[in-house]
């Protein structure tokens, strides 16, 4: 009997041959038919695909409670429990998934260079192939709208903001000294080699609550993953040399490199406008380690150190006397980060970065030693709450220790120092209501013990897709920054400097073909540090008394499609800004501002000779300067500035790896106009103040490099 029962049970699947027909139609929210949808009973073979009219029909011999599902790329999965056998008809409405590839992305104020990603406006390779950049990340970024040409500075000046208002992050961790030390009259450049990065995100405003301590702009550099190939690289350049070796294993890789730069040759060949005693020379060493312990995890370590030395005579006034300015220093930057996921819905990033700098500046008979430590620990957690809803939160602790020893041979000695342990927390959510509408509300709060100040910064961004390849975006946010070390060393009785951003932008097209972007912005500054000059040249009466505004329009156009082999972009920036800060007696346009900046970058690939030709042209309207003899502050204006640069990169290969012969000429036309005037502090016998004109240090610069890989 038992056997019979068992038999009976096993026969049931074969016996129950009652058929059901399940049919219907699949449409989207607007009632439009969706073909190709997979409609099926879960865990069975039974199902069908919808036809061109969205119709489907299939038979099944299953019985009992079953789960009917409908799935299709770009749509949320639909499911319903049904009872069988039963003939059923459905009208299935599939809702668009908000995570599709063509979904809206928040782009207000952000320019991205990535291999993938629709918000990208540049590719990482563009850093190398932009002539005016000369291999400097910051140089390539300066061809983006919203930046000043600043050929006499070399650093990023964004939307009316001073240099210190831009913060640089590597893999989410701050890089406190992204540039080589800046000395008067000589332009500087970025410290980090572009070959280390696979993506760059340049935020000109309205950026995420994850970042603080930047009034104007955040530059985010994302480093490369585990190297996939062993490689030896040798670079021979007209101003130095570099050698590097990459070793890769299954889940890890190590890169070591060392190099030196010496501008002695340039000083000899080209007539430098600087009266060099010791032209810039530097040595550097870098180690990069990557480890992928598991599929979702990645550990990155990056340590770089450099030593640089320079000295030159600078004119101090119109009496013809020069003083010797020298600068030498060691910088060590390290960055350790780990990211991983806890399951499918939660991922995290943790890391610590540190910058140490010991800098020795000589100014005539005075000797200034500055030692700085900046250590930041940071974490962030990202939750996928539900489809289209992402929540990110995290915190950071930034320790700073600053000590400056000012020794004057014929004046008082002076010691300025301070310590800070800034703490920050943030929470931010990205919500996609549909694939056409996304918002990003966020909140950031910081406490800075050194000034005993606390801030709360709400931020908000929104993006609305208005067509297949068109979108509108807007952002608003409050931004805070602890006053600069140069002020904190004198007094800690200060408060945060503040800025409020309003951004409205429109974008059309995509970067691999044609892309147009226009963005209008307005910024309000408050609490900027002001001071008056004291007797010994040090600032006095430091207060958060300044304020100002910046408004403007940034336009970007890139076209890689119209002419085969030609890739070009044009940017135009208009800005109107005034501020009262530093020693300004009243609101005035700062001396680094050109109201109009136009730049063109074009690249053409000559496949026959494996050579790329690049051109960049920048023209900027005159900048204000102050004539101390005039009653109007910053009331004068220099002439317009322009620069035409050319480059050639010839690609060839040794074995399976490619090498590049590179040549660039900057300022081909040899324009030698005055970029600005540096005021002097001492009046001559007649009571007039002299002004020192600032020009480019090299009128025309030729760079040749051979980059070998094998």
């Amino acid at each position, binding site marked *: 009997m*038992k*056997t019979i029962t*068992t*038999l009976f049970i*096993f026969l049931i*699947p074969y016996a129950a041959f009652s058929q059901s027909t399940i049919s219907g139609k699949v449409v989207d929210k607007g009632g439009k038919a969706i*073909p*190709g*949808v*997979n409609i*099926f009973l*879960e*865990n*069975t*073979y*039974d*199902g*069908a*695909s919808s036809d*061109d009219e969205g119709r489907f029909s299939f038979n099944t011999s299953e019985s009992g409670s079953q789960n009917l599902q409908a*799935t299709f*790329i*770009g749509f949320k999965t639909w499911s319903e429990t049904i009872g069988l056998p039963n003939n059923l008809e459905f009208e299935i409405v599939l809702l668009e998934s908000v995570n*599709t*590839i*063509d979904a809206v992305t928040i782009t207000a104020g952000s320019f991205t260079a990535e*291999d993938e990603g629709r918000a990208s406006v540049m*590719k*990482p*390779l563009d850093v190398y192939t932009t002539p005016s950049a000369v291999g400097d990340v910051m140089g390539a970024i300066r061809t983006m709208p919203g930046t000043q040409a600043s050929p006499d500075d070399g650093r990023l000046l964004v939307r009316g903001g001073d240099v210190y208002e831009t913060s640089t992050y590597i893999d989410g961790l701050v890089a406190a000294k992204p540039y080589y030390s800046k000395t008067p009259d000589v332009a500087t450049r970025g410290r980090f080699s572009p070959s280390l990065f696979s993506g760059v995100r340049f935020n000109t405003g309205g950026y995420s609550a994850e970042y603080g301590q930047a009034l104007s702009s955040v530059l985010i550099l994302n480093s490369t993953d585990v190297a*996939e*190939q062993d490689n030896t690289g040798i670079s021979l350049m007209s101003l130095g040399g570099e050698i590097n070796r990459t070793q890769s294993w299954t889940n890890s890789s190590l890169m070591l490199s060392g190099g030196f730069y010496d501008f002695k040759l340039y000083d000899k060949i080209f007539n430098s406008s600087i009266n060099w005693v010791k032209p810039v020379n530097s040595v550097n060493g870098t180690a990069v380690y990557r480890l992928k312990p598991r599929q979702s995890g990645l550990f990155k370590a990056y340590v770089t150190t450099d030593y640089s030395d320079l000295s030159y005579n600078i004119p101090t006034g119109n009496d013809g006397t020069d003083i010797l300015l020298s600068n030498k220093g060691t910088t060590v930057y390290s960055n350790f980060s780990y990211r991983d996921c806890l399951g499918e819905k939660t991922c995290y990033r943790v890391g610590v970065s540190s910058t140490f700098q010991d800098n020795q500046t000589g100014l005539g008979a005075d000797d200034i030693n500055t030692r700085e430590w900046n250590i930041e620990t940071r974490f962030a957690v990202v939750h996928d709450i539900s489809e289209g809803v992402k929540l990110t939160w995290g915190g950071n602790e930034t320790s700073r220790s600053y000590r400056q020893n000012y020794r004057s041979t014929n004046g008082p000695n002076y010691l300025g120092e301070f310590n800070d342990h800034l703490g920050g927390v943030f929470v931010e959510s990205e919500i996609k209501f549909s694939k056409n509408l996304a918002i990003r509300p966020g909140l950031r709060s910081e406490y800075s013990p050194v000034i005993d100040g606390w801030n709360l910064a709400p931020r908000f961004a929104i993006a609305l897709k208005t067509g297949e390849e068109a979108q509108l975006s807007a952002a608003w946010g409050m931004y805070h920054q602890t006053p600069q070390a140069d002020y904190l060393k004198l007094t800690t009785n200060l408060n945060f400097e503040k800025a409020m951003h309003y951004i409205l932008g429109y974008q059309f097209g995509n970067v*691999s073909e044609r892309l147009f972007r226009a963005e209008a912005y307005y910024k309000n500054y408050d609490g900027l540090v002001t001071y008056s000059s004291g007797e010994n040249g040090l600032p006095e009466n430091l207060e958060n008394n300044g304020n100002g505004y910046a408004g403007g329009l940034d336009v970007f156009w890139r076209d890689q499609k119209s002419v085969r082999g030609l890739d070009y972009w044009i940017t135009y920036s208009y800005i109107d800004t005034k501020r009262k800060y530093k020693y300004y007696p009243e609101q005035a346009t700062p001396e680094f501002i050109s109201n109009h900046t136009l730049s063109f970058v074009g690249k053409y690939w000559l496949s026959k000779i*494996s050579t790329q030709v690049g051109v960049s042209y920048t023209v900027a309207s005159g900048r204000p300067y102050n004539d101390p003899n005039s009653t109007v502050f910053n009331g004068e204006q220099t002439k317009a500035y322009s620069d035409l640069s050319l480059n050639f990169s010839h*690609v*060839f*290969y040794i*074995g*399976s*790896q*490619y090498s590049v012969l590179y040549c660039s000429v900057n300022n081909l036309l040899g324009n030698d106009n005055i970029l600005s005037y540096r005021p002097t502090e001492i009046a001559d016998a007649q009571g007039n103040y002299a002004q020192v004109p600032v020009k480019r240090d090299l009128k025309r610069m030729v760079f040749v490099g051979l980059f070998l890989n094998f």
Partner: protein
Amino acid sequence: MKTIITLLFAAVTSAAFSSKYEEIMKSNIDKMYQTTSSDELQSLANQFERIGNAEAGKWLPGYYAAYCFVRSTFFDDMEKDAKTAQLDKAQELIDGLLKNHSNESELYALQALLYQLRITDTASGARYSGKAGEAIAVAEKLNPENPRVYYLRGSNTFHTPGFFGGGAEKAKPDLEKAAAMFASQKPVDPLMPTWGADHNQQLLNDCKTAE
């Protein structure tokens, strides 16, 4: 006695299901190789996905579903976004399969093909041909007798510009090796993949024209 009968029936039941599996798989695989319509491939991918859902331990249904999505990008002049969406869908399936079947050479071969199809310009070329190369290396390690290993490597080399170390001449040895293996190997399991031979031959012909 009871146990024996139970076992016997269990065996019969699973054998019946198994043959149903093989039958449906075989007929779908044949259809898949014949069609050049991306709509039909979509519907076949759906079928393979359904089979994959029902047959939890097997990797071939999911593999073919992924291959259908990959293959659908060959036809109908698909737009870039649509192509990317199909490849993303295939990638999702491959990622899922690799979790439990990381020793299947064919999965890595398909992964390599998918990477190759993501190449649209020089920048993505450098990136994805590197990734494809890695996947091919794993596929070779797992099964050096897999002809798709040499076909894909040859194709990778063939499409790499000369100044990056590619070109017809360098691709030829791999393509020839693949052609010999495609010709000599008769599949033991009728459900195992067989794609690649035609395109391999086409590339070899292109090599000869290039000479």
